[in-house]
């Protein structure tokens, strides 16, 4: 199975990169863009046929390494 993991800063935590991009978009004339949040995207193959087991493994990976849950939140898809 393939896992697609998205890690972003939690809502409420200032994202200076997002702010800089927002300003750049604004100066390019995209006046309707707001609340830019920058994150990480990771994909990985997981050698597991059972969906529930694969999901449990990916959750553990996120909690242990892929995200720092003090400042970040994560979501994932399995295909």
């Amino acid at each position, binding site marked *: 199975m393939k896992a697609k993991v998205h890690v972003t*800063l939690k809502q409420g*935590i*200032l994202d*200076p*990169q997002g702010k*800089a991009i927002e300003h750049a978009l604004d100066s390019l004339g995209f006046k309707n863009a707001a609340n830019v949040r920058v994150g*990480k995207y990771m994909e990985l193959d997981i050698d597991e046929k059972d969906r529930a087991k694969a999901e449990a493994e990916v959750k553990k990976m996120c909690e242990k*390494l*892929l995200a*720092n849950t*003090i*400042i970040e939140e994560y979501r994932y898809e399995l295909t």
Partner: protein
Amino acid sequence: MKIGVLVFPGSNCDHDCRHVFQNVLGQPVEMVWHKDALPAGLDAVVIPGGFSYGDYLRTGAIARFSPVMGGVKEFAQRGGLVIGICNGFQILLEAGLLPGAMLRNRSLHFICKDVYVRVENAATPFTSACTPGQVLKIPIAHAEGNYYTDPVTLAGLQANAQVVFRYCTPDGKATADASPNGSLDNIAGIRNAEGNVLGMMPHPERCAEEMLGNEDGRLIFASMLEAVQQIKSKLSIVGS
């Protein structure tokens, strides 16, 4: 006093730390490769600055799983002195030996310059040579030094005098403008609840001898030396 200085792939302040302990303070130092076990008989462990694992994923996120870190955790749990400087601080946070996390600097820039920090707690093994409220000039060099933690943890740090250094103006005022990176509550360094683990973003090893024009950083290492000597003299009294 025997010091262990950890070396990760990407550490770049390891030899500066060795130099200060060995040549400035005259203490034996052992360089410890991150894949090796922590040697027995150390009195203090230094996790130096640099870019361990190229800062991949997050600063310190991969280094915390290096084999040597298991030994560092045990050493800290036994009450051993551990100091993490810059990337070392980031590793201690990721390892859970200190609370909180680092965000990108408010300005997004890598900042390398002298800053002023106020000693908020001079009753620690890392600051006993300082006076309470003393202002130290120490350089920083980082892009991720914007300390963050949740409000409950922050209140705990404040209540237990775990905030050891705050960024301040040259005359000692911890104003928002004095923080170079946007760090919460101007935090530049914290200790754990037990008091034997310190993390700080400024680099005291870069200003610890007269030749460099600034000796403020030497106070941190001299404090550690004094703390270890006190522990040893107590042990020898008990033993005799």
